[in-house]
């Protein structure tokens, strides 16, 4: 059963530094970090103390609001430090890694033989649950819920995103096992979206409703696909999982181990020989990028340029990141750069630059804001990159005003911050759309739940 998803509105940003289809193993880091901030809305309750020895896959903290949701160590080693910030908020847990991982051994299981509750319990106990995200609100799924459906987007359209088909080429068996496990969790369907152009390696995956996706970014955003397949109504819950995490879940069932190794694309205009690396979640950034970067005034982003998080050179890879992007910092002045058709090296989706005349050109953007924040004046530009059936500017205004009724009626349940990433990028007023949506979703969690 296949249903096509076709998207017209959106924008494919063509950037320099795309990863070649090569995989290498990254050097093993001395210290790995788990950052609770990678899991939005989670307040950690520590299980281990500094100095404790942990195995790979051993629980190090759980969520204060849902004790069943556990978070595990990606490597075996010794808890080196629990870094705290203001008001003793836990910033990161540093684990000094052993030279070889010792895993927590779970028994091998065939998900098809298990009941819903058994699958759930296994995912919760093994630390795989945080891979499951919930819409609305874009937070970790509540283990007490039964979702209307589960959505997996195996088509990444974000700028320089890792090619899902390439990354999972040799993990299809694990992927299938993950799908089988997830299928147990919903009374509805598991929807799998794959690239429309060319032959997808996921065409033969069983137990899913397959969708072929065509169109520019954000066509690969799972939220956009949900909107086209079965939009979320007030009170409904759907879950989403990224394809690499599906494979990790599958591997847990096949091997009995929580394997935090993932394939990450090291990309961006400042990267020499951009390619893929097998790396364990939470690895030190330096071990991944050392010797591969040109220039020193750069920003390292865990994730893609639109939705990723900035990490320091001595920081660590995010828990769920599939890419590390390195681009130049933009802390420089540009004389008369605001003039129409000035600075052809800076891309513009609007036709006030020259970009629309050179559709094939690849850009090496820096982090300059290219202007200053201003009042909302220009209309219609947000709609041009918003394929969901919502009015983005009206919704953002309702969010700014914290008008819950209006947010609800304008479709706040159907969106996640990443769906507004292109609006961040294109809008003339330099409005921080993703941040506004994130804060609005947090307000909704508090007020509506």
């Amino acid at each position, binding site marked *: 059963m296949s249903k096509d998803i076709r998207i017209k509105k959106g924008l494919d940003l063509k950037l320099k530094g795309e990863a070649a289809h090569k995989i290498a193993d990254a050097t093993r880091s001395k210290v790995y970090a788990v950052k609770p901030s990678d899991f939005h809305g989670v307040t950690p309750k520590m299980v281990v103390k500094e100095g404790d020895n942990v195995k790979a896959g051993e629980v190090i903290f759980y969520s204060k609001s849902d004790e069943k949701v556990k978070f595990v160590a990606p490597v075996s080693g010794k808890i080196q430090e629990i870094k705290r910030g203001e008001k003793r908020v836990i910033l990161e847990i540093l684990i000094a890694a052993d030279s070889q991982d010792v895993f927590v051994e779970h028994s091998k299981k065939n998900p098809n033989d298990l009941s819903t509750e058994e699958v759930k319990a296994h995912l919760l106990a093994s630390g795989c649950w945080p891979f499951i995200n919930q819409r609305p609100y874009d937070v970790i799924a509540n283990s007490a819920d039964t979702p209307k459906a589960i959505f997996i987007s195996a088509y990444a359209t974000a700028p320089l995103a890792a090619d899902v088909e390439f990354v999972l080429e040799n993990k299809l068996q694990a992927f299938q096992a993950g799908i089988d496990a997830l299928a147990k969790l919903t009374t509805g369907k598991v929807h799998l979206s794959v690239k429309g152009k060319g032959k997808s390696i996921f065409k033969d995956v069983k137990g899913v409703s397959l969708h072929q996706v065509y169109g520019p970014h954000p066509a690969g955003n799972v939220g956009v696909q949900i909107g086209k397949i079965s939009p979320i109504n007030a009170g409904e819950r759907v879950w989403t999982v990224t394809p690499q995490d599906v494979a990790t879940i599958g591997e847990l069932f096949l091997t009995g181990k929580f394997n935090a190794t993932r394939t990450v694309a090291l990309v961006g205009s400042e990267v020499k020989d951009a390619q893929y690396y097998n790396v364990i979640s939470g690895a030190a950034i330096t071990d991944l990028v050392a010797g591969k970067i040109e220039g020193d005034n750069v920003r390292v982003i865990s994730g893609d340029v639109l939705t990723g998080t900035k990490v320091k050179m001595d920081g660590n890879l995010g828990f769920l990141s599939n890419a590390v992007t390195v681009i130049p910092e933009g802390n420089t002045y540009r004389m008369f750069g605001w003039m129409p058709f000035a600075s052809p090296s800076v891309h513009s989706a609007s036709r*006030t630059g020259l970009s629309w005349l050179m559709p094939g050109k690849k850009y090496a953007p820096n982090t300059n804001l290219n202007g200053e924040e201003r009042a909302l004046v220009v209309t219609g530009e947000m709609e041009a990159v918003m394929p969901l059936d919502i009015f983005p500017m009206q919704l953002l205004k309702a969010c700014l005003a914290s008008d819950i009724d209006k947010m609800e009626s304008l479709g706040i349940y159907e969106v996640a911050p990443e769906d507004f990433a292109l609006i961040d990028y*294109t809008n003339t007023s330099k409005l921080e759309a993703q941040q506004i949506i994130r804060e609005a979703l947090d307000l909704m969690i508090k007020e509506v739940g």
Partner: protein
Amino acid sequence: MKFLRDKIDQIKKPFEKGQKFEKFAPAINALDTFLYVPNHTTKHGAHIRDAVDLKRTMITVVLALVPALLFGIYNAGYQHFIQLNEGVLPSFMDIFLHGLWKVLPMIIVSYAVGLGIEFAFAIFRGHEVNEGYLVSGLLIPMVMPVDLPLWMLAISVAFAVIIGKEAFGGTGMNIFNPALLARAFAFFAYPTFMSGDKIWVSDATTIDGVSGETILGSLAQGKEVAYSTMDMFLGFIPGSIGETSVLAILIGAFILIATGVGSWKIMVSGVIGAALTAMMFNAVGLTALMNFDWINHLVVGGFAFGIVFMATDPVSAAQTDKGKIIYGLLIGFFSIMIRVFNPAYPEGVMLAILLMNTLAPTIDYFVVNGNISKRKKRLAKSKQLKSA
């Protein structure tokens, strides 16, 4: 260029946080960012940003206004010398310089008063200076008659910026197009200056027997029109400074549409709305104004200027795509209605746009409500399915 940058940074020192002139930072920043795109980097959200900003958008509109402005300056001189009736016209340059001599002071006064108020409000409110007035400040002189005394212009500008814009919260919040508001203010506050046959030609009081009425003005009085459609299209007719040449305005419209800065939806639907209404009146044909050919309606008066540069102001126009089409159609419709049925106000487009400015939020309300009720219906349907 490092020297210049260093100098500016040095000048800006006393304006930094915690320094003596901190409060005046918006003023100095406005000047600095005019020279340089600042070195601000992204802190939240997307790490890279589009090259477009409000400055670029606004300057694009200013560029689009330049052809109409240049022609307006020439025409100001041309109308003066042709009414002098000395037989031989002076050289092109002399005509242009006469126009410039009249128009340049108006532009200077408009920018000085308007930007002065904008800067003051920015400092008072502690936000950066928005670039919106770069456009309004040029639009205002262009919709005024050339002989308008400068003090009247200054008061109109002050009214438009303070009451029309800042009172509502500044750029982006205003209900009415500030430039049109300035014109409407002048029109109603100084009616004797803003109508009749003297005001549209520069130094007309020094000329005997001037016949410098606008075409719509004479039509309203039942007089014959002495100009051909081509005259009206090219713009060698009396009228407000920027509005007469449809050709120059079309060049501006092309720039706005090509760059995507102006909404083609509003422009096209506005022209369609006006053309259909005028055709309808042509068919009825009871009065001289009704019989005025529909093509002439499109090229005469301020219609072209209004629909290209005023109606497309994104802040005061409808903001939804569907809303823009309805908004444009109604502006076209009301422009012709007012022209035909209210000869006291021969220029219908100004009032039509102001009227539609008030109605634009209502149009958007209904468009957005369509989306809301679709969502509600979907919810009701899914509830029904569940209970079934």
